[in-house]
């Protein structure tokens, strides 16, 4: 069942729409990542769902009810803000139960929920502190606590980890995912970090310029990207996308035409860095740089002035400036139409 559903939702502030006819749905209990580059409309989409912005057109449904015109408090959503939005003059405990107090939840019930949330998040010892006396990760957990005690079926998060250091981010990522599963929440999670989206989400909605570029499980985005944009946005380092004719001229192992017998002229081929290997025969390339990462080596090569990155296992024996030949399994090549930018096979 769909817990959150958007239908042709548009939001504009006079100029070009920030969110342009966006439709997607999140199943109950799923973690859905809203992914995309800066300014693509992720936050706006989330705020539309929360009711902090009103849609210019379209319908938003939560748990089957049309909430498009409803105020935020009646939508049954909780939200974790990017800057946490903790009340600086209240203690951790007061921050967490703020909403319960506002809603006149009885004291005993409030205490019970607070205790449970504090237990889950490991905040028991910090309940009397003020937000300014907490580290970034602890503040983050308090914000999460506020969302948990509301016990709303839907939880929205706007880049909750962007203020944390890399180590803590990995930890919190795991914690949030575990918590979401344990409480059975439906979570919409905004991020511009594709690793975060890929590792945490059941479903990824990739946006660009206010529109949905692709909507599907992480594996689908990775294995069969619908557009060149998706192909290059998902995965690090990004997929190599080169005009098919360039690769053919460089001697890549391929037929003289594209799928469905289309001529190579208007097509592009995408090869993931990990799908390419060094071979006796293949596309000629010059090594421009070598980056040794320990478990593998990234070789940045140039195929007729087009950059092409290859990931080789272990320590690769290539020299900067040397000539190499690149090959790949034909089945691992992604074909795109250059004029529509869309996938054809």
């Amino acid at each position, binding site marked *: 069942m769909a817990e959150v559903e958007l239908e042709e939702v548009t939001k504009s502030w006079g100029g070009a729409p920030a969110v342009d006819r966006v439709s997607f749905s999140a199943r109950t209990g799923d973690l859905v990542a809203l992914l995309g580059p800066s300014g693509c409309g992720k936050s706006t989409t989330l705020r539309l769902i929360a009711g902090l912005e009103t849609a210019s057109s379209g319908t938003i449904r939560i748990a089957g009810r049309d909430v498009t015109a409803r105020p935020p*408090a009646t939508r049954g959503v*909780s939200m974790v803000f990017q800057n946490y*939005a903790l009340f600086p003059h209240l203690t951790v405990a007061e921050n967490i139960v703020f909403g319960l107090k*506002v809603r006149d939840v009885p004291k005993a019930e409030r205490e019970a929920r607070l205790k449970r949330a504090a237990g889950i998040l490991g905040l028991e010892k910090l309940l009397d502190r*003020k937000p300014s006396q907490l580290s970034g990760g602890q503040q983050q957990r308090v914000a999460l606590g506020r969302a948990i005690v509301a016990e709303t079926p839907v939880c929205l998060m706007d880049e909750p980890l962007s203020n944390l250091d890399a180590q803590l981010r990995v930890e919190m990522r795991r914690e949030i995912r575990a918590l979401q599963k344990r409480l059975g929440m439906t979570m919409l999670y905004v991020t511009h970090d594709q690793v975060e989206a890929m590792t945490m989400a059941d479903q990824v909605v990739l946006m660009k310029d206010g529109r949905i570029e692709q909507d599907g499980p992480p594996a689908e985005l990775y294995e069969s990207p619908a557009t060149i944009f998706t192909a290059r946005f998902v995965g690090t380092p990004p997929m190599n996308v080169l005009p098919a004719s360039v690769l053919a001229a460089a001697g890549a192992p391929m037929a003289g035409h594209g799928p469905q017998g289309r001529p190579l002229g208007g097509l592009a081929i995408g090869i993931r860095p990990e799908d390419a290997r060094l071979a006796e025969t293949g596309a000629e390339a010059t090594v421009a740089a070598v980056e040794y990462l320990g478990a593998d080596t990234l070789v940045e090569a140039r195929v007729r002035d087009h950059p092409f990155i290859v990931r080789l296992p272990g320590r690769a024996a290539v020299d900067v400036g040397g000539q190499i030949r690149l090959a790949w399994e034909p089945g691992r090549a992604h074909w795109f139409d250059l004029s529509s930018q869309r996938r054809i096979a």
Partner: protein
Amino acid sequence: MDARLVISPQPLLRRVMTHPRLTATIHGWLLLLPAMALLALFTHWPAVATFIDSFYSTPRPRRPSRFVGLDNYQQILADPVFWQSLWNNLLFALGTIPVSIALALLMAVWVNDRIVGRTAVRMAYFTPTVLPMIAVANIWLFFYTPQYGLLEQITALFGAEPRNWLGSKDTALFAVTLVAIWKEAGFFMIFYLAALQSISPSLAEAAALEGASRWTFFRRVQFPLLMPTTLFVLVNAVINAFRMVDHIVVMTRGGPDNATSLLLFYIYQVGFNFWDTTYAAALTTVLLVLLALVALLQYGWLERRIHYR
């Protein structure tokens, strides 16, 4: 003889000048000096001189000034006009301080919310602050004029009795209090507005998501976060309540029958109309002590409750 003990003045000076921390300190004091000198000359010294003067008698052509101890202060205790002025001043303070602060807060919260034409409203509220008090007093003098003043014309529309607002003992203090409120509220609003704008808008959004009403958000979030501003404004309001004198001079000259005589106005009268300078000095000392007490009380009592960071 130990060579280190024989230090000629020159190397010593050089050593002092090149010692980094010492030079920084000397530079600091040198930079402060002009401001300090001015402050001492025009603020600290007059204050001390006033205090000293208050123990002397006022020099008259035939009787030079002499030390009289606490005579001036005893005279204050027995002076009915002083007590009346103090009482008036308390009423004036009680009238202006809470009302102007509440009004300032209300206007700031209102202007801070996204209303149409908020720049215009903000400007309109701030105008009284920009106007000199003398001009303000003149405007209000016109409002209060008997028979053809604005206020009279309006009340006449409703069939009210004609009244001399500034000329009657019953209404004069109220009338000048109103002017002060009008003048001060806009000024305090600016401080509140600045403080409100430093509150992250996501706090309002978080509260809205939790179902907090506008009032709840104000009471539980905005108001507590504004407490440092309130303290600052309060101290200023108290000081202003004892410092404002221009509009009294223009509008009532303390009358009728001392009904609008405030402390500072009385001091001015004693000092510059009656030329009893040392008695004025004693009155000034009393006023300063009063103000210092109030400020100490406010900081001591409130400061502990408002520092949430």
